């Protein structure tokens, strides 16, 4: 019998009791109540349909084909050499935090700068009723009414909790490896990462998603809350090159303080369903948000990029560049909103979304939006769709390149505008190679 999204929902709600029992959490732990509240919200919302404006182009029901359930409590997984190779970024020195099937694995993690930031796994923070954890769980903003956030909150078990104290400059990036290993069931992993960056800090974070099963029987539901203080610089990189046909939902909720700069980078190139929601709230004056995305898709990839940059106070700046390359039967969605709140005068906001469609089967949906409630602003957005410039192709061919290579080279040039924004050299080289590999460009 066909499984529908509604069946998945019902089962998740019905089986919550069993999940709770297995959790063995203290009954007096406030988390219990938080989970129940979240479940209620999820139950009320259900999985989004096409009628949900923010999900118009990503019909979830099409992808939820199995009766997903939270992974069993013992299935912590042991990655082999091949699995581990997928997580490697040559030449990258980093503070590695390793998660397998949603669980922290200390043995595979390596923290180089222990003195500079505080890390603990969410599972133990839950057990200890960590006040910071609880305060963050109680202050989820969710402006988009996204049921996956509440599903995550109800079922979350582990993740990273990172706190960087004031005046700390990290020398090495924090590297979150999120790996899912092949397993027999149809699993849903709900992982939460909580990050707090203090005032006058500098930090880079890389979050890499690897689905070793490469099947659409695995649904990773990640929710990242990032809070940035004043006068800080934070870069956040999301890598999605090893998802195979896996399903991935990611919600980012970022708050940026006064005179701080936040940059986010999404590199997506895989996944039967990838939905990246990036919600950035500029809540301090003279703060900046920079958003970069590159989705280069083929096969039946479906990648939905939802971004909201919320200018909540005067004198803030944002710049967004998301580029799409769509091949074969892929579907690319860009749904980006610039929001300027009443009173947020002197906002400057720019957004650009160019796309190249390489094949007859591919589809693009772009919905750039401006919602402006203050008058002394400069906001622009642009979106384009087209193919490679015939003139350019001809030029390269007249210099001896064959058509396929000329096409690959120009596509790479198109992508490179995003890649070159990456500030970590080892990561940039890694991305260059990945993209070249995908486009079959040879040295």
């Amino acid at each position, binding site marked *: 019998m066909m499984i529908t999204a509604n069946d998945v929902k019902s089962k998740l709600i019905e089986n919550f009791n069993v999940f709770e029992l297995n959790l063995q959490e203290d009954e007096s732990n406030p988390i219990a109540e938080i989970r129940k509240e979240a479940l209620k919200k999820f139950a009320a919302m259900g999985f989004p349909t096409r009628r949900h404006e923010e999900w118009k182009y990503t019909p979830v029901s099409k992808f939820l084909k199995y009766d997903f359930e939270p992974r069993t409590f013992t299935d912590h997984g042991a990655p082999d050499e091949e699995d581990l190779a997928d997580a490697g970024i040559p030449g990258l020195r980093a503070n590695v935090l390793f998660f397998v099937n949603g669980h922290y694995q200390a043995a595979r993690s390596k923290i180089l700068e222990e003195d500079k930031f505080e890390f603990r796994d969410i599972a133990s923070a839950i057990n200890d009723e960590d006040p910071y954890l609880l305060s963050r769980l109680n202050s989820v903003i969710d402006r988009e009414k996204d049921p996956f956030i509440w599903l995550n909150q109800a079922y979350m078990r582990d993740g990273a909790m990172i706190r960087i104290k004031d005046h700390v400059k990290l020398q090495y990036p924090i590297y979150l490896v999120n790996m899912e290993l092949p397993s027999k069931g149809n699993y849903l992993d709900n992982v939460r990462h909580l990050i707090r960056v203090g005032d006058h800090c500098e930090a880079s974070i890389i979050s890499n998603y690897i689905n070793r099963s490469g099947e659409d029987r695995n649904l990773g539901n990640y929710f990242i809350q990032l809070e940035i203080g004043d006068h800080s610089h934070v870069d956040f990189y999301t890598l999605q090159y090893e998802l195979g046909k896996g399903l991935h939902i990611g919600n980012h909720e970022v708050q940026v303080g006064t005179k701080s700069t936040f940059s986010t980078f999404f590199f997506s190139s895989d996944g039967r369903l990838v939905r990246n929601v990036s919600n950035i709230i500029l809540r301090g004056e003279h703060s900046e948000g920079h958003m970069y995305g590159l989705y280069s898709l083929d096969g039946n990839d479906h990648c939905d990029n939802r971004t909201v940059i919320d200018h909540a106070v005067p004198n803030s700046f944002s710049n967004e560049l998301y580029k799409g390359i769509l091949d074969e039967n892929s579907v690319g969605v860009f749904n980006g909103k610039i929001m300027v709140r009443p009173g947020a005068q002197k906002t400057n906001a720019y957004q650009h979304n160019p796309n190249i*469609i390489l094949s007859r089967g591919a589809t693009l949906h772009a919905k*750039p939006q401006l919602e402006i409630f203050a008058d002394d602003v400069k906001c622009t957005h642009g979106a384009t769709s087209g193919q490679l410039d015939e003139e350019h192709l001809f030029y390269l061919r007249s210099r001896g390149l064959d058509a396929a290579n000329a096409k690959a080279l120009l596509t790479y040039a198109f992508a490179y505008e995003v890649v070159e924004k990456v500030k970590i050299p080892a990561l940039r080289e890694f991305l260059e190679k990945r993209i070249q590999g995908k486009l079959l460009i040879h040295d």
Partner: protein
Amino acid sequence: MSKDDKIIHEVAGSEYKYGWVSNIEEDTLAPGLSEETVHFISAKKNEPEWLLEWRLKAYRQWLKMTPPSWQNLKIPPIDFQSISYYSAPKPKKKLDSLDEVDPELLATFEKLGISLEEQKRLTGVAVDAVIDSVSVTTTFKEKLGELGVIFCSMSEAVREHPELVRKYLGRVVPPTDNFYAALNSAVFSDGSFAYIPKGVRCPMELSTYFRINAAGTGQFERTLIVAEEGSYVSYLEGCTAPQRDENQLHAAVVELIALDDAEIKYSTVQNWYPGDKDGVGGVYNFVTKRGICEGRRSKISWTQVETGSAITWKYPSCILKGDDSIGEFYSVALTRNRQQADTGTKMIHIGKNTRSRIISKGISAGQSQNSYRGLVSINKGAENARNYSQCDSLLLGDQCGAHTFPYLDCSNPTAQIEHEATTSKIGEDVLFYCRQRGMDEEEATALIINGFSREVLKKLPMEFAVEAQKLLAISLEGSVG
């Protein structure tokens, strides 16, 4: 309050110029909507059985539908039973010429600035005037008749040209297309019909003036324009309504059909009563306008200047079905006080080498909310389709909102879509420059806004462009002309 603010407040709060009520004797149906209402309207118009059935089918569907909610508008609930669905100026007798038209009615048109007498003698614009729900007079019929051009009220078209009406009515906007279109299909009482035969270039602009006059009525007119192969027509539409405290519903449907090599240019100056500065009263303008470029190399061009209505919900669209066909949308929408507008277009590219162009200029003042919403859809078979969209918004004052919601769907690799949008206010440096040349802020603002809107205004026929420019200035100046 600073001087700037004061001017912006004045600018934002000017009075409505067309807010008088005419003392025309009207024949108005008691409020309420049921199958009987539909029967009544159809009977009143001596309609054939098929049309009554068509209406009833739409009505039954409408009962099952709910008003759309996706738009960026706050629409108070509408009691569809409290609206009167038919109101007509009482005819003293059948009118044979303009001289027999009710003098009060003629005076109404004079006030609107469209003297029919003048029109008739001088300008060469054929006018069909619709007051409340009924077409009152159509000028120039004979002259057009010589060329085979049919231009008459929809009621007359149903009587005189039933085969044409039956063939095309509902072809572009099916009776159940959306909530308001279904309502219109059930209860439309009149409207204009134009048919341009093969190869004819309509020698004059065809024009309809719509006015809601009676209290408590809705206006549900239906316009159908068919341009046969190789023909051309330019059609103008103007709208006003008296100042009333209650809200009035205007739910019209416009359908355009362009066959091979035909061109339809449809221009609107919409100045329905927008409500007062506190948002009391005003027209709800919920309109479905759609054209189909059925034939190859056909072209449909929408131009609109929207300054009126309390709430506007309107997306004049083009279905570009014929290869090499062209769709255009040029729009200026100005909102002030508590007006809300959610307007834009849809360009559906189906045929090969189809092209579309969207130029939208939004101006928000007072506490108004002004949204552009547009869809560009490139279907799989639309080889080499091209679209260019430019949406600019200007904000006057810090209490209004300007929003842009474009949707781009592309399923063809050879298509090229380009969309750009900007939002800003009038630069202080630009204002200062104008003031240094002797203009006060109000005049400078009007001048700058006319400049901002120029690309759209210049698409209007000459007489209309002047009127639209004045309308923008009046809407901004706070001075009654």
